[in-house]
Protein backbone atom coordinates (compact mmCIF):
# COMPACT_ATOMS: atom_id res chain seq x y z
CA UNK A 1 0.00 0.00 0.00
CA UNK A 2 0.99 3.61 -0.49
CA UNK A 3 3.34 5.86 1.33
CA UNK A 4 5.46 6.42 3.12
CA UNK A 5 7.86 3.78 1.95
CA UNK A 6 10.52 4.56 4.44
CA UNK A 7 10.34 4.40 8.19
CA UNK A 8 12.47 5.41 11.05
CA UNK A 9 14.37 2.70 12.83
CA UNK A 10 12.35 2.93 15.97
CA UNK A 11 10.15 0.10 17.08
CA UNK A 12 8.09 -0.81 20.07
CA UNK A 13 10.77 -3.34 20.95
CA UNK A 14 13.37 -0.62 20.95
CA UNK A 15 11.24 1.66 23.11
CA UNK A 16 10.57 -1.08 25.62
CA UNK A 17 14.20 -2.20 25.61
CA UNK A 18 15.28 1.28 26.54
CA UNK A 19 12.81 1.34 29.39
CA UNK A 20 14.33 -1.88 30.67
CA UNK A 21 17.83 -0.48 30.32
CA UNK A 22 16.82 2.64 32.19
CA UNK A 23 15.60 0.49 35.04
CA UNK A 24 19.05 -1.09 35.46
CA UNK A 25 20.51 1.64 37.70
CA UNK A 26 17.52 1.23 39.98
CA UNK A 27 17.96 -2.53 40.05
CA UNK A 28 21.66 -2.20 40.76
CA UNK A 29 20.96 0.18 43.61
CA UNK A 30 18.36 -2.23 44.89
CA UNK A 31 20.85 -5.09 44.98
CA UNK A 32 23.48 -2.97 46.62
CA UNK A 33 21.16 -1.56 49.25
CA UNK A 34 18.78 -4.43 49.92
CA UNK A 35 20.61 -7.51 48.76
CA UNK A 36 20.17 -9.70 45.70
CA UNK A 37 16.64 -10.78 46.53
CA UNK A 38 15.22 -8.44 43.91
CA UNK A 39 16.97 -10.44 41.20
CA UNK A 40 14.98 -13.53 42.12
CA UNK A 41 11.77 -11.50 42.16
CA UNK A 42 12.57 -9.99 38.76
CA UNK A 43 13.39 -13.34 37.23
CA UNK A 44 10.26 -14.96 38.56
CA UNK A 45 8.05 -12.08 37.41
CA UNK A 46 9.67 -12.08 33.98
CA UNK A 47 9.15 -15.78 33.44
CA UNK A 48 5.57 -15.58 34.63
CA UNK A 49 4.84 -12.58 32.43
CA UNK A 50 6.33 -14.11 29.31
CA UNK A 51 4.50 -17.38 29.78
CA UNK A 52 1.23 -15.63 30.56
CA UNK A 53 1.63 -13.28 27.60
CA UNK A 54 2.37 -16.12 25.21
CA UNK A 55 -0.57 -18.12 26.49
CA UNK A 56 -2.91 -15.16 26.22
CA UNK A 57 -1.76 -14.28 22.71
CA UNK A 58 -2.27 -17.84 21.67
CA UNK A 59 -5.69 -17.97 23.28
CA UNK A 60 -6.76 -14.75 21.60
CA UNK A 61 -5.53 -15.94 18.25
CA UNK A 62 -2.68 -13.50 17.83
CA UNK A 63 0.72 -14.39 16.46
CA UNK A 64 2.96 -14.91 19.45
CA UNK A 65 6.38 -13.90 18.20
CA UNK A 66 5.91 -10.27 17.05
CA UNK A 67 3.97 -9.47 20.16
CA UNK A 68 6.20 -11.27 22.57
CA UNK A 69 9.29 -9.62 21.15
CA UNK A 70 7.84 -6.19 21.74
CA UNK A 71 9.02 -6.70 25.36
CA UNK A 72 6.04 -4.89 26.81
CA UNK A 73 5.19 -7.83 29.04
CA UNK A 74 8.68 -7.79 30.53
CA UNK A 75 8.43 -4.08 31.22
CA UNK A 76 5.20 -4.70 33.09
CA UNK A 77 6.80 -7.55 35.02
CA UNK A 78 9.83 -5.50 36.02
CA UNK A 79 7.78 -2.50 37.10
CA UNK A 80 5.59 -4.69 39.24
CA UNK A 81 8.57 -6.55 40.67
CA UNK A 82 10.25 -3.30 41.62
CA UNK A 83 7.15 -2.24 43.51
CA UNK A 84 6.92 -5.45 45.49
CA UNK A 85 8.77 -6.06 48.72
CA UNK A 86 11.94 -7.67 47.56
CA UNK A 87 11.56 -10.86 49.56
CA UNK A 88 7.88 -11.30 48.86
CA UNK A 89 6.78 -14.95 48.61
CA UNK A 90 6.75 -16.48 45.14
CA UNK A 91 2.99 -16.90 44.95
CA UNK A 92 2.57 -13.20 45.57
CA UNK A 93 4.84 -12.40 42.65
CA UNK A 94 3.18 -14.90 40.37
CA UNK A 95 -0.35 -13.84 41.29
CA UNK A 96 0.40 -10.17 40.78
CA UNK A 97 2.11 -10.71 37.44
CA UNK A 98 -0.62 -12.99 36.21
CA UNK A 99 -3.26 -10.51 37.18
CA UNK A 100 -1.39 -7.70 35.48
CA UNK A 101 -0.89 -9.58 32.21
CA UNK A 102 -4.04 -11.62 31.98
CA UNK A 103 -6.68 -9.31 33.37
CA UNK A 104 -5.35 -5.78 33.19
CA UNK A 105 -3.66 -6.18 29.84
CA UNK A 106 -5.25 -8.89 27.74
CA UNK A 107 -8.81 -8.90 28.98
CA UNK A 108 -8.83 -5.19 28.23
CA UNK A 109 -7.75 -5.84 24.65
CA UNK A 110 -4.00 -6.32 24.81
CA UNK A 111 -1.15 -4.00 24.00
CA UNK A 112 -2.34 -0.51 23.36
CA UNK A 113 -5.88 -1.12 24.55
CA UNK A 114 -5.55 -1.41 28.29
CA UNK A 115 -7.19 1.43 30.12
CA UNK A 116 -5.24 0.84 33.29
CA UNK A 117 -1.55 0.49 33.84
CA UNK A 118 -1.20 -3.30 34.13
CA UNK A 119 1.66 -3.26 36.64
CA UNK A 120 -0.28 -0.96 38.90
CA UNK A 121 -3.41 -3.06 38.64
CA UNK A 122 -1.39 -6.08 39.70
CA UNK A 123 0.13 -4.14 42.55
CA UNK A 124 -3.18 -2.73 43.74
CA UNK A 125 -4.85 -6.12 43.69
CA UNK A 126 -2.02 -7.61 45.77
CA UNK A 127 -2.07 -4.72 48.19
CA UNK A 128 -5.78 -5.08 48.78
CA UNK A 129 -5.73 -8.86 48.99
CA UNK A 130 -2.51 -9.44 50.90
CA UNK A 131 -1.74 -6.31 52.89
CA UNK A 132 0.53 -8.08 55.34
CA UNK A 133 2.84 -9.67 52.83
CA UNK A 134 2.82 -6.54 50.75
CA UNK A 135 4.18 -4.42 53.55
CA UNK A 136 6.87 -6.77 54.83
CA UNK A 137 9.86 -4.98 53.41
CA UNK A 138 13.37 -6.05 54.23
CA UNK A 139 15.24 -3.15 55.68
CA UNK A 140 18.31 -1.68 54.08
CA UNK A 141 21.35 -3.84 54.57
CA UNK A 142 23.03 -1.02 56.36
CA UNK A 143 20.41 -1.26 59.11
CA UNK A 144 19.62 -4.97 59.27
CA UNK A 145 23.25 -5.92 58.99
CA UNK A 146 22.41 -9.36 57.70
CA UNK A 147 23.31 -9.57 54.04
CA UNK A 148 21.43 -12.42 52.44
CA UNK A 149 22.98 -14.37 49.61
CA UNK A 150 21.14 -15.02 46.38
CA UNK A 151 20.42 -18.55 47.56
CA UNK A 152 19.10 -17.36 50.91
CA UNK A 153 16.85 -14.90 49.18
CA UNK A 154 15.55 -17.53 46.83
CA UNK A 155 14.92 -19.81 49.76
CA UNK A 156 12.87 -17.14 51.50
CA UNK A 157 10.93 -16.30 48.39
CA UNK A 158 10.11 -19.91 47.63
CA UNK A 159 9.14 -20.57 51.21
CA UNK A 160 12.06 -22.82 51.95
CA UNK A 161 13.35 -20.78 54.85
CA UNK A 162 11.87 -20.50 58.34
CA UNK A 163 9.73 -17.46 58.83
CA UNK A 164 12.14 -16.19 61.45
CA UNK A 165 14.78 -15.55 58.83
CA UNK A 166 12.45 -13.23 57.01
CA UNK A 167 11.29 -11.58 60.19
CA UNK A 168 14.88 -10.92 61.08
CA UNK A 169 15.39 -8.76 58.06
CA UNK A 170 12.04 -7.10 57.53
CA UNK A 171 11.29 -3.80 59.09
CA UNK A 172 8.86 -1.01 58.53
CA UNK A 173 9.56 1.20 55.55
CA UNK A 174 10.08 4.90 56.08
CA UNK A 175 6.59 5.65 54.86
CA UNK A 176 5.16 3.02 57.19
CA UNK A 177 7.15 4.38 60.05
CA UNK A 178 5.94 7.87 59.36
CA UNK A 179 2.40 6.69 59.12
CA UNK A 180 2.35 4.63 62.30
CA UNK A 181 4.29 7.32 64.10
CA UNK A 182 1.74 9.94 63.16
CA UNK A 183 -1.07 7.61 64.20
CA UNK A 184 0.62 7.38 67.57
CA UNK A 185 0.51 11.15 67.81
CA UNK A 186 4.22 11.69 67.38
CA UNK A 187 5.37 14.70 65.44
CA UNK A 188 7.20 14.38 62.18
CA UNK A 189 10.43 15.63 63.72
CA UNK A 190 10.33 12.99 66.42
CA UNK A 191 9.68 10.26 63.92
CA UNK A 192 12.43 11.46 61.63
CA UNK A 193 15.05 10.77 64.23
CA UNK A 194 14.65 7.03 63.75
CA UNK A 195 17.48 5.26 61.94
CA UNK A 196 15.32 4.31 58.97
CA UNK A 197 15.40 7.91 57.77
CA UNK A 198 18.32 9.18 55.79
CA UNK A 199 19.34 12.56 54.45
CA UNK A 200 16.14 13.56 52.75
CA UNK A 201 14.23 10.32 52.32
CA UNK A 202 14.52 6.92 53.89
CA UNK A 203 17.99 5.59 54.58
CA UNK A 204 18.99 3.64 51.48
CA UNK A 205 15.58 4.29 49.99
CA UNK A 206 16.69 7.75 48.94
CA UNK A 207 19.57 6.26 46.96
CA UNK A 208 17.18 3.92 45.25
CA UNK A 209 15.01 6.90 44.37
CA UNK A 210 18.07 8.64 43.01
CA UNK A 211 18.88 5.65 40.81
CA UNK A 212 15.37 5.63 39.39
CA UNK A 213 15.67 9.35 38.77
CA UNK A 214 18.90 8.79 36.86
CA UNK A 215 17.30 6.11 34.70
CA UNK A 216 14.33 8.34 34.06
CA UNK A 217 16.55 11.17 32.92
CA UNK A 218 18.14 8.79 30.44
CA UNK A 219 14.70 8.01 29.02
CA UNK A 220 13.96 11.69 28.77
CA UNK A 221 17.29 12.41 27.09
CA UNK A 222 16.46 9.75 24.51
CA UNK A 223 13.01 11.31 24.02
CA UNK A 224 11.38 8.04 24.91
CA UNK A 225 9.32 9.83 27.50
CA UNK A 226 8.28 13.45 27.40
CA UNK A 227 9.30 15.75 30.22
CA UNK A 228 5.73 16.66 30.88
CA UNK A 229 4.45 13.73 32.86
CA UNK A 230 7.42 13.25 35.23
CA UNK A 231 7.85 16.93 35.86
CA UNK A 232 4.17 17.45 36.51
CA UNK A 233 4.07 14.37 38.71
CA UNK A 234 7.01 15.51 40.80
CA UNK A 235 5.61 19.01 40.95
CA UNK A 236 2.28 17.61 42.09
CA UNK A 237 3.93 15.61 44.87
CA UNK A 238 6.17 18.42 45.93
CA UNK A 239 3.53 21.12 45.94
CA UNK A 240 0.87 19.03 47.66
CA UNK A 241 3.31 17.82 50.29
CA UNK A 242 4.82 21.26 50.65
CA UNK A 243 1.41 22.82 51.08
CA UNK A 244 0.52 20.46 53.91
CA UNK A 245 3.95 20.69 55.46
CA UNK A 246 3.78 24.46 55.37
CA UNK A 247 0.58 24.49 57.38
CA UNK A 248 1.55 21.89 59.91
CA UNK A 249 5.12 20.72 59.78
CA UNK A 250 4.46 18.51 62.77
CA UNK A 251 1.73 16.46 61.18
CA UNK A 252 2.86 16.26 57.56
CA UNK A 253 6.12 14.98 56.16
CA UNK A 254 8.52 17.29 54.35
CA UNK A 255 8.09 17.62 50.58
CA UNK A 256 11.63 16.40 49.93
CA UNK A 257 11.01 13.33 51.99
CA UNK A 258 7.95 12.50 49.92
CA UNK A 259 9.75 13.26 46.70
CA UNK A 260 12.63 10.96 47.43
CA UNK A 261 10.57 7.88 48.08
CA UNK A 262 11.54 5.32 45.43
CA UNK A 263 7.91 4.77 44.53
CA UNK A 264 7.54 8.43 43.58
CA UNK A 265 10.55 8.43 41.28
CA UNK A 266 9.57 5.10 39.79
CA UNK A 267 6.03 6.36 39.40
CA UNK A 268 6.98 9.67 37.86
CA UNK A 269 9.44 8.35 35.29
CA UNK A 270 8.35 4.81 34.58
CA UNK A 271 4.76 4.25 35.60
CA UNK A 272 2.86 7.45 34.95
CA UNK A 273 4.73 7.75 31.66
CA UNK A 274 3.21 4.52 30.39
CA UNK A 275 1.87 5.87 27.10
CA UNK A 276 -0.96 3.41 26.67
CA UNK A 277 -2.88 4.28 29.80
CA UNK A 278 -1.77 7.91 29.98
CA UNK A 279 -2.95 11.09 28.40
CA UNK A 280 -1.75 11.93 24.91
CA UNK A 281 -2.15 15.67 24.56
CA UNK A 282 0.58 18.02 25.75
CA UNK A 283 -1.63 19.77 28.26
CA UNK A 284 -3.28 16.50 29.15
CA UNK A 285 0.09 15.05 30.08
CA UNK A 286 0.68 17.89 32.49
CA UNK A 287 -2.74 17.46 34.05
CA UNK A 288 -2.33 13.70 34.23
CA UNK A 289 1.06 13.89 35.90
CA UNK A 290 0.11 16.64 38.28
CA UNK A 291 -3.12 14.94 39.25
CA UNK A 292 -1.33 11.68 39.95
CA UNK A 293 1.25 13.50 42.05
CA UNK A 294 -1.31 15.31 44.16
CA UNK A 295 -3.40 12.17 44.58
CA UNK A 296 -0.31 10.28 45.74
CA UNK A 297 0.14 12.69 48.63
CA UNK A 298 -3.57 12.71 49.44
CA UNK A 299 -3.66 8.94 49.60
CA UNK A 300 -0.44 8.78 51.58
CA UNK A 301 -1.79 11.27 54.07
CA UNK A 302 -5.41 10.28 54.44
CA UNK A 303 -5.79 6.95 52.70
CA UNK A 304 -5.74 3.51 54.22
CA UNK A 305 -2.41 2.49 52.72
CA UNK A 306 1.07 3.81 53.34
CA UNK A 307 1.80 4.57 49.72
CA UNK A 308 -0.48 6.00 47.09
CA UNK A 309 1.36 6.01 43.78
CA UNK A 310 -0.43 2.97 42.40
CA UNK A 311 -3.89 4.16 43.31
CA UNK A 312 -3.14 7.68 42.16
CA UNK A 313 -2.03 6.48 38.76
CA UNK A 314 -5.02 4.16 38.42
CA UNK A 315 -7.41 6.95 39.36
CA UNK A 316 -5.89 9.23 36.78
CA UNK A 317 -6.07 6.44 34.19
CA UNK A 318 -9.84 6.58 34.55
CA UNK A 319 -9.83 10.28 33.81
CA UNK A 320 -7.67 10.00 30.70
CA UNK A 321 -10.40 9.94 28.04
CA UNK A 322 -11.96 13.00 29.59
CA UNK A 323 -8.65 14.81 29.93
CA UNK A 324 -7.75 14.01 26.35
CA UNK A 325 -11.06 15.15 25.02
CA UNK A 326 -10.90 18.51 26.72
CA UNK A 327 -7.26 19.24 26.06
CA UNK A 328 -7.07 18.79 22.31
CA UNK A 329 -4.34 21.16 21.23
CA UNK A 330 -4.70 23.90 18.68
CA UNK A 331 -3.95 22.59 15.23
CA UNK A 332 -1.88 24.28 12.53
CA UNK A 333 -3.87 27.26 11.39
CA UNK A 334 -6.55 26.52 13.96
CA UNK A 335 -8.37 29.15 15.94
CA UNK A 336 -6.24 30.52 18.76
CA UNK A 337 -6.88 29.11 22.17
CA UNK A 338 -7.70 25.58 23.10
CA UNK A 339 -10.45 23.76 21.38
CA UNK A 340 -12.50 20.91 22.62
CA UNK A 341 -12.02 17.71 20.74
CA UNK A 342 -15.70 17.21 20.54
CA UNK A 343 -18.42 19.68 19.91
CA UNK A 344 -20.43 18.28 22.76
Amino acid at each position, binding site marked *: *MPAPFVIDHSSVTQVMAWVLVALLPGIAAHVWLFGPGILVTLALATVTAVVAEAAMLKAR*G*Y*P*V*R*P*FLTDLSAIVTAWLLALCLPSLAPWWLIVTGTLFAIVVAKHLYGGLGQNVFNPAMVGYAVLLISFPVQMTSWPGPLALTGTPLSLADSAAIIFGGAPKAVLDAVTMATPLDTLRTGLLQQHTVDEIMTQPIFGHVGGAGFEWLAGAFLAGGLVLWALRIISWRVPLAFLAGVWLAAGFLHFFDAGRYGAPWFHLFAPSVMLGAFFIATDPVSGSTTPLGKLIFGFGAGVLTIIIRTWGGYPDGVAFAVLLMNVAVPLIDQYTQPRIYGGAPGREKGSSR
Partner: protein
Amino acid sequence: MIAALLVMVGLAVVIGLALGWSAVRFKVEGNPLAEKIDAILPQTQCGQCGFPGCRPYAEAIARGEADINQCPPGGEEGVKKLAELLGVEPKPLDETHGTPKPKSVAFIDENLCIGCTLCIQACPVDAIVGAAKQMHTVIASECTGCELCVPPCPVDCISMVPVAEDLPHWKFKHPLVMMKQVGGARG
Protein backbone atom coordinates in the same frame (compact mmCIF):
# COMPACT_ATOMS: atom_id res chain seq x y z
CA MET B 1 -36.44 12.86 57.95
CA ILE B 2 -39.95 13.95 57.00
CA ALA B 3 -38.58 17.31 55.95
CA ALA B 4 -36.02 15.69 53.70
CA LEU B 5 -38.67 13.51 52.14
CA LEU B 6 -40.89 16.49 51.57
CA VAL B 7 -38.08 18.40 49.97
CA MET B 8 -37.35 15.49 47.68
CA VAL B 9 -40.96 15.06 46.70
CA GLY B 10 -41.29 18.79 46.21
CA LEU B 11 -38.25 18.87 43.99
CA ALA B 12 -39.51 15.97 41.96
CA VAL B 13 -42.84 17.67 41.45
CA VAL B 14 -41.25 20.96 40.45
CA ILE B 15 -38.85 19.32 38.02
CA GLY B 16 -41.61 17.17 36.60
CA LEU B 17 -43.77 20.22 36.04
CA ALA B 18 -40.92 22.09 34.43
CA LEU B 19 -40.21 19.17 32.14
CA GLY B 20 -43.85 18.78 31.22
CA TRP B 21 -44.21 22.45 30.53
CA SER B 22 -41.13 22.59 28.36
CA ALA B 23 -42.28 19.50 26.47
CA VAL B 24 -45.44 21.38 25.56
CA ARG B 25 -43.74 24.70 25.08
CA PHE B 26 -40.91 23.48 22.89
CA LYS B 27 -42.77 20.81 21.04
CA VAL B 28 -41.24 20.30 17.63
CA GLU B 29 -43.64 20.46 14.74
CA GLY B 30 -44.09 17.55 12.40
CA ASN B 31 -42.48 14.23 12.95
CA PRO B 32 -38.77 14.83 13.19
CA LEU B 33 -38.12 11.16 13.83
CA ALA B 34 -39.54 10.11 10.47
CA GLU B 35 -37.50 12.91 8.96
CA LYS B 36 -34.34 11.60 10.57
CA ILE B 37 -35.07 8.03 9.54
CA ASP B 38 -35.78 9.17 6.01
CA ALA B 39 -32.40 10.90 5.94
CA ILE B 40 -30.73 7.53 6.58
CA LEU B 41 -32.72 5.56 4.01
CA PRO B 42 -30.99 5.35 0.64
CA GLN B 43 -33.85 6.95 -1.32
CA THR B 44 -33.76 4.27 -3.96
CA GLN B 45 -37.58 4.33 -3.77
CA CYS B 46 -37.70 0.73 -4.84
CA GLY B 47 -40.50 -0.41 -2.58
CA GLN B 48 -38.70 -3.57 -1.53
CA CYS B 49 -39.34 -2.68 2.07
CA GLY B 50 -43.05 -3.16 1.40
CA PHE B 51 -43.87 0.52 1.34
CA PRO B 52 -44.37 2.76 -1.66
CA GLY B 53 -41.05 4.52 -1.20
CA CYS B 54 -38.57 5.43 1.48
CA ARG B 55 -40.61 8.13 3.13
CA PRO B 56 -43.64 5.93 3.89
CA TYR B 57 -41.26 3.29 5.26
CA ALA B 58 -39.60 5.94 7.42
CA GLU B 59 -42.97 6.98 8.75
CA ALA B 60 -43.90 3.40 9.44
CA ILE B 61 -40.70 2.87 11.41
CA ALA B 62 -41.32 6.06 13.30
CA ARG B 63 -44.79 4.83 14.21
CA GLY B 64 -43.29 1.54 15.26
CA GLU B 65 -45.20 -0.37 12.60
CA ALA B 66 -42.24 -1.61 10.61
CA ASP B 67 -38.96 -3.20 11.55
CA ILE B 68 -35.66 -1.52 10.78
CA ASN B 69 -34.22 -4.33 8.68
CA GLN B 70 -36.43 -4.26 5.61
CA CYS B 71 -34.45 -2.05 3.25
CA PRO B 72 -32.07 -4.10 1.09
CA PRO B 73 -30.44 -1.14 -0.71
CA GLY B 74 -29.51 0.32 2.65
CA GLY B 75 -27.77 -2.92 3.56
CA GLU B 76 -26.43 -3.92 6.92
CA GLU B 77 -24.87 -0.53 7.31
CA GLY B 78 -28.23 1.16 6.93
CA VAL B 79 -29.70 -1.13 9.56
CA LYS B 80 -26.84 -0.29 11.85
CA LYS B 81 -27.40 3.42 11.42
CA LEU B 82 -31.13 3.07 12.03
CA ALA B 83 -30.45 1.00 15.13
CA GLU B 84 -28.10 3.69 16.37
CA LEU B 85 -30.63 6.42 15.73
CA LEU B 86 -33.43 4.54 17.44
CA GLY B 87 -31.27 3.17 20.22
CA VAL B 88 -32.07 -0.48 19.53
CA GLU B 89 -29.94 -3.52 18.80
CA PRO B 90 -28.99 -3.86 15.14
CA LYS B 91 -30.24 -7.03 13.50
CA PRO B 92 -29.43 -8.79 10.26
CA LEU B 93 -31.22 -7.73 7.13
CA ASP B 94 -34.59 -9.40 6.62
CA GLU B 95 -33.87 -11.44 3.50
CA THR B 96 -37.51 -11.83 2.60
CA HIS B 97 -37.38 -8.26 1.34
CA GLY B 98 -34.40 -8.93 -0.84
CA THR B 99 -30.64 -8.83 -0.59
CA PRO B 100 -28.30 -5.91 -1.25
CA LYS B 101 -26.93 -5.74 -4.78
CA PRO B 102 -24.10 -3.71 -6.21
CA LYS B 103 -25.27 -0.31 -7.33
CA SER B 104 -26.60 -0.45 -10.87
CA VAL B 105 -28.40 1.85 -13.24
CA ALA B 106 -31.05 1.00 -15.77
CA PHE B 107 -30.05 0.91 -19.38
CA ILE B 108 -32.62 1.00 -22.20
CA ASP B 109 -31.69 -0.75 -25.39
CA GLU B 110 -32.69 2.04 -27.68
CA ASN B 111 -33.03 -0.22 -30.71
CA LEU B 112 -35.72 -2.24 -29.03
CA CYS B 113 -37.61 0.51 -27.20
CA ILE B 114 -41.09 1.01 -28.70
CA GLY B 115 -41.83 4.18 -26.76
CA CYS B 116 -44.70 2.80 -24.73
CA THR B 117 -44.02 5.11 -21.72
CA LEU B 118 -44.74 2.30 -19.27
CA CYS B 119 -41.28 2.61 -17.75
CA ILE B 120 -41.68 6.34 -17.42
CA GLN B 121 -44.77 5.80 -15.35
CA ALA B 122 -42.98 3.32 -13.18
CA CYS B 123 -39.87 5.33 -12.44
CA PRO B 124 -40.16 6.88 -8.99
CA VAL B 125 -37.64 9.63 -9.66
CA ASP B 126 -38.52 10.58 -13.24
CA ALA B 127 -35.12 9.41 -14.40
CA ILE B 128 -36.42 8.24 -17.79
CA VAL B 129 -37.03 10.75 -20.54
CA GLY B 130 -38.89 10.27 -23.79
CA ALA B 131 -42.32 10.92 -25.22
CA ALA B 132 -45.00 8.47 -26.36
CA LYS B 133 -43.95 6.37 -29.36
CA GLN B 134 -40.41 7.70 -29.10
CA MET B 135 -37.29 6.11 -27.87
CA HIS B 136 -36.70 6.46 -24.14
CA THR B 137 -33.43 7.03 -22.34
CA VAL B 138 -32.33 6.71 -18.72
CA ILE B 139 -30.55 9.64 -17.13
CA ALA B 140 -27.89 7.59 -15.44
CA SER B 141 -26.94 10.21 -12.89
CA GLU B 142 -30.47 10.32 -11.60
CA CYS B 143 -31.37 6.65 -11.76
CA THR B 144 -31.44 5.11 -8.30
CA GLY B 145 -31.26 1.56 -9.57
CA CYS B 146 -34.62 0.59 -8.12
CA GLU B 147 -35.45 -1.81 -10.98
CA LEU B 148 -39.11 -0.77 -10.96
CA CYS B 149 -38.93 0.05 -14.64
CA VAL B 150 -37.73 -3.40 -15.63
CA PRO B 151 -40.90 -5.51 -15.28
CA PRO B 152 -43.38 -3.15 -17.03
CA CYS B 153 -41.40 -3.02 -20.26
CA PRO B 154 -43.35 -5.09 -22.79
CA VAL B 155 -40.32 -5.74 -24.99
CA ASP B 156 -37.82 -6.38 -22.20
CA CYS B 157 -35.44 -3.76 -23.40
CA ILE B 158 -34.37 -2.50 -19.99
CA SER B 159 -31.40 -4.08 -18.27
CA MET B 160 -29.62 -3.17 -15.05
CA VAL B 161 -25.95 -2.36 -15.60
CA PRO B 162 -23.69 -2.38 -12.54
CA VAL B 163 -21.91 0.93 -12.06
CA ALA B 164 -18.24 0.41 -12.82
CA GLU B 165 -15.78 2.07 -10.50
CA ASP B 166 -14.03 4.92 -12.29
CA LEU B 167 -11.27 7.24 -11.23
CA PRO B 168 -13.34 10.04 -9.71
CA HIS B 169 -15.29 7.49 -7.69
CA TRP B 170 -12.39 5.30 -6.71
CA LYS B 171 -11.92 4.87 -2.99
CA PHE B 172 -8.85 4.11 -0.94
CA LYS B 173 -9.46 0.74 0.58
CA HIS B 174 -9.13 -0.02 4.24
CA PRO B 175 -5.46 -0.73 4.84
CA LEU B 176 -5.85 -4.44 4.95
CA VAL B 177 -3.10 -4.86 7.40
CA MET B 178 -5.23 -6.86 9.71
CA MET B 179 -2.79 -7.45 12.46
CA LYS B 180 -3.40 -11.12 12.64
CA GLN B 181 -2.77 -11.60 8.94
CA VAL B 182 0.40 -9.61 8.73
CA GLY B 183 1.75 -10.97 11.97
CA GLY B 184 0.84 -14.45 10.81
CA ALA B 185 2.80 -13.96 7.63
CA ARG B 186 5.81 -13.05 9.65
CA GLY B 187 5.62 -15.09 12.80
